[in-house]
């Protein structure tokens, strides 16, 4: 009957699962992990280029959800935005900490993912691939300068001042490019992904 039990959890909304987490329900945490654990993990891998470190980050993120999930309300925005924000913040913190410890190679952004997609079901992989393809397509439509500031900030963990120094552009230009990039992404993804944006 375990399968039926899990199926019931799969049918719950994110907020319902968070409420159960408030009651120390680990099955609810497991269900949230199944929904979003992969995204948190690959985001960390994308930024850290370190699967082991990314496991630690993912653990930290979901332990934060476990400890603080009960405090979340929809007034804080979409749950996924909240979760990915925690994940990104935690990952960037780790990246910057490592940078302080040692100089890190500035790898090409798309060249360092060596993990193979071998554990996903075909259906999940198809959905994930579809979402990924849409976001990447929207990214590719950005002017290259705007795309660069997004990738250098979000995926490489550089601050806007560091980006200005690295690219030789004025700080104000970097700020503007960041803002324009997000605006254009939102417009593009609103058409592609509808309610998700």
């Amino acid at each position: 009957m375990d399968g039926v039990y899990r199926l019931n959890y799969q049918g719950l909304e994110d907020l319902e699962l968070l409420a159960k987490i408030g009651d120390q329900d680990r099955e609810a945490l497991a269900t949230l992990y199944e929904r979003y654990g992969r995204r948190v993990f690959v985001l960390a891998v994308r930024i850290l280029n370190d699967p082991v470190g990314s496991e630690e980050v993912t653990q930290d993120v979901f332990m934060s959800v476990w400890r603080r999930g009960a405090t979340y309300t929809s007034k804080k925005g979409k749950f996924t935005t909240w979760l990915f924000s925690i994940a990104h913040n935690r990952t960037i913190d780790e990246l910057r900490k490592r940078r302080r410890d040692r100089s890190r190679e500035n790898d090409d952004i798309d060249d360092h993912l060596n993990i193979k997609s071998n554990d996903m079901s075909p259906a999940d992989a198809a959905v994930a691939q579809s979402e990924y393809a849409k976001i990447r397509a929207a990214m590719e439509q950005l002017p290259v300068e705007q795309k660069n500031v997004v990738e250098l900030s979000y995926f490489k963990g550089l601050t806007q001042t560091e980006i200005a120094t690295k690219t030789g552009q004025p700080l104000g230009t970097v700020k503007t490019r960041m803002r324009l990039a997000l605006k254009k992404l939102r417009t593009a993804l609103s058409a592609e992904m509808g309610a998700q944006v």
Partner: protein
Amino acid sequence: MTDSKDNTETGAGMDARFEDFAAYALDALDSDDERRAVESLIDSDPEALAEFNELFETAGLLAIAVPPVSPPSHLKANILKLAAEDSAPTTIQSAPAILRPAFWGTRIFRSGVAVSATAAIAVLLVVGALGYQNSQLSDEIDTLRTDISVEAVAVATLQSELSTTVTDSETKVASMKSDLEAMEHEFGATTEKVVQQEEMVSKLAIANDALRQALRDQSWLTYVAMKEGYQVESWLAGSQQAPAQSEASGLIAVKVVGNEAVFQVHSLDQPRPGFAYTLWLMGNGAPRPVAQFEVSEIGTATVPFLLPAPLHYYSSVMVTQEQVNEIGNDPSGTMVIFAETN
């Protein structure tokens, strides 16, 4: 959108107050002061909050802009294990904390104790008592976290000790089981030896009885030979007609006066079930069965019988296996002794 010379690059038409919102959403601000400035603005300006939420949610979508791969299969188990080891999730019932916009709770989550304390000071400047309350809650959370860590260490220690105890017990049980098996093996071997010895004793007893019987027979033969006038008339040894595997031999003693005789035989096997040995006198007309007898455990027998005629009237003696009490006119069973009288 691929034109890098897009005139929107200039940022024309954008509110300069919001210039750091995107950097905040992308975690690209350089200092906590910049972050606090953004938070202060969106706390006080609904238009700023709407602009910020739009950028913040879009930045969240970038988390999906990574190739779809799967985390290691053990990661989920690790997280659930940590959750099990962790104490109860903290439920903060403070309404003001819940009413904050999305970025605020997130920032507090990320910052830890030091940033929480700093954030609390900023909140004090903005919302006074609200920030103070939040600071208290942060302190309480930190205290709870410390308590949880201490308890987690204690639980881990207990688990370790319990694991060691269980391991020791399992080792002792395994050792005792091994010893018991060895004892059972030795006991089994001893029992087998006892059974063998009992069988040997039984065989020796049978042999002893047979020897006693043979001795009694021999004594009787000697007695009758000396006291009652018997003399050995014929030594019976196997002839060519006797079975090759038979080692049986015997003699016939005849009383000096009268027609009483004794047949004594050695090394006969036990007859088949339902059969007995029959002594035949041959060569004086039809074969004459004169006695039917059994043998001792060692194959000996002393059989008194009456001679129908003097022994020298007969040319040979035969011993066959015949059915008990069903002796015919001629020997028909298996022959074990055939010897000429001499």
